[in-house]
């Protein structure tokens, strides 16, 4: 049997310290925690940074390093620093080094790197070693080469390599959410379907149970399946909460693709052992003929500046769309006229909060609100141009009248200056897999002895 302690769905989301103590007392074989995902958008991958505060990350990671020492087992983090790039891994390693010094305890750290050279992936694309997944964007080698960061998602094989170094702590770059949990049970000969299924159930911490905010869960893997137990007071796993978790952020609730194969839970059986624990058997692992790892990539998509204005006067609230469309047209023309640019160099958009900001033309509910928030969004090829066009947009959003006959209106600006630079924005460009001869081909492993 392999016992995996999962403190929470992600480092940075906090965990219940009492429940963690219960987990340590249960003598886990490994503590595994996820450090990120794509869910916060392309900017973190594009820039190679964490979305969580360094202070929170350090406090929570220090608690887990202490727990690891008490439980005398390895601690592994996957997708370190939200995006799992080399820069995010280095950030995490730096935090780990500080904590090791502060706790006065030597730590052997294995670092698994997942960053890819965009030029290399472009070459792999041309050599047909990069193939698209469903609804992948149409891309070419040049576009791949223009990515600021590309990562490959490591699976259980690469995590196992890192654990085999005998490290106390594994800091992994981008991995699948499940790999860090499934790796040790797989290596120790537990049921493969059960290992991946249990990992999927556990990857969000206590989200698979009642009281989902409590975080800490324990999963026991064996030769037939797994048993999941939430550890916080008042948290219960039931066959319903556990099986329903397969729906979460999955496009297919029965099939989950991983490096080297896929999990099929169509015939999984969920049984309550008591009020808190659920036993699952019957999940199936189907190995694939080719070994592939998923790629994620982001590239710069221009520079953005935003402005906000509030419309409160009834006449303008009712006609906000006409007002916004007229501004976009007139301001775009002025930008082309005064700045020696073409329509390809910039876009101006105004979104109306209170009207259609959520769904645009897909909105089905149309009512006249009390007030409307107008967000002007300027996206341009350079930071300078973005700021300049935002300044052209400023007087329109402050004073633009619906008709020439009426007195010049003045709308409410929330801030001075009104223009808020958002810097470079990024976009996801890869929904593809990379074919590998050997699982470690796209990854590197190094060991650091921190004193």
């Amino acid at each position: 049997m392999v016992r995996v302690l999962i403190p929470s769905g992600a480092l940075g989301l906090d965990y219940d310290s009492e429940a963690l103590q219960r987990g340590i007392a249960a003598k886990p074989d490994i503590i595994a925690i996820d450090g990120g995902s794509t869910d916060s958008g392309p900017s973190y991958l594009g820039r190679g940074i964490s979305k969580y505060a360094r202070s929170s990350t350090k406090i929570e990671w220090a608690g887990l390093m202490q727990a690891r020492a008490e439980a005398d087992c390895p601690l592994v983090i996957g997708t370190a620093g939200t995006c799992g790039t080399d820069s995010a891994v280095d950030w995490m390693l730096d935090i780990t080094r500080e904590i090791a010094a502060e706790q006065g305890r030597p730590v052997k750290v294995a670092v698994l790197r997942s960053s890819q050279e965009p030029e290399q992936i472009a070459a792999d694309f041309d050599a047909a070693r990069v193939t698209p997944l469903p609804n992948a964007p149409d891309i070419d080698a040049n576009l791949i080469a223009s990515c600021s960061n590309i990562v490959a998602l490591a699976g259980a094989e690469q995590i196992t390599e890192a654990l085999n170094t005998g490290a106390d702590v594994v800091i992994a770059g981008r991995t699948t959410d499940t790999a860090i949990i499934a790796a040790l049970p797989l290596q120790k000969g537990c049921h493969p379907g059960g290992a991946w299924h249990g990992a999927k159930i556990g990857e969000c911490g206590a989200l698979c149970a009642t009281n989902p905010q409590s975080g800490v869960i324990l999963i026991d893997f064996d030769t037939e399946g797994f048993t999941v137990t939430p550890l916080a007071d008042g948290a219960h796993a039931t066959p319903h909460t556990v099986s329903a978790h397969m729906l979460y952020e999955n496009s297919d609730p029965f099939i989950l693709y991983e490096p080297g194969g896929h999990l099929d839970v169509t015939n999984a059986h969920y049984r309550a052992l008591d009020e808190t624990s659920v036993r699952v058997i019957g999940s199936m692992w189907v190995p694939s003929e080719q070994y592939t790892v998923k790629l994620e990539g982001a590239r710069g998509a221009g520079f953005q500046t935003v402005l906000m204005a509030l419309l409160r006067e009834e006449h303008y609230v009712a006609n906000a769309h006409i007002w916004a469309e007229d501004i976009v047209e007139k301001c775009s023309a002025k930008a082309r006229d005064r700045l020696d640019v073409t329509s390809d160099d910039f876009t101006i958009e105004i979104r109306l909060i209170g009207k259609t900001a959520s769904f645009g033309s897909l909105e089905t509910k149309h009512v006249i609100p009390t007030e409307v928030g107008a967000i002007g969004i300027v996206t341009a090829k350079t930071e300078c141009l973005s700021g300049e066009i935002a300044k052209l947009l400023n007087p329109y959003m402050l004073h633009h009248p619906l008709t020439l006959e009426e007195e010049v209106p003045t709308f409410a600006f929330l801030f001075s200056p009104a223009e808020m630079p958002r810097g470079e924005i990024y976009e996801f460009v890869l929904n593809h897999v990379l074919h590998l001869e050997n699982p470690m081909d796209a990854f590197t492993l190094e060991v650091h002895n921190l004193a």
Partner: protein
Amino acid sequence: MPKLGDVAQKVRSKNAGPFWLTVDIFCGDKNAYKCVVEGFSTLQVARIFRAEPQLIKRFDIPDLNVVKFSLPRPKTQGASADRDIHGASWAALLTEAEIGTTETRSKK
């Protein structure tokens, strides 16, 4: 006609990666599940999101009283035209959509 939100216990939408959106309709009980399975079509979802019907994956899951739809994201997550990075607000469009129950359909 009742709305999906009147019949189902909860409708949830989330990203399933940057390129897919997934919607889970938790019906709550067998009656509501039957009502949703029979009265809420994949074509309706396609119309609401202006998506290609053949690209929409549908899962009717009686064990959980859940109907799940997965579809290509209306805009790629975080692209400049995207309006909701986490994809959670899209559920409201379905919650407010009218649902044709078996009774109302048989009256037509």
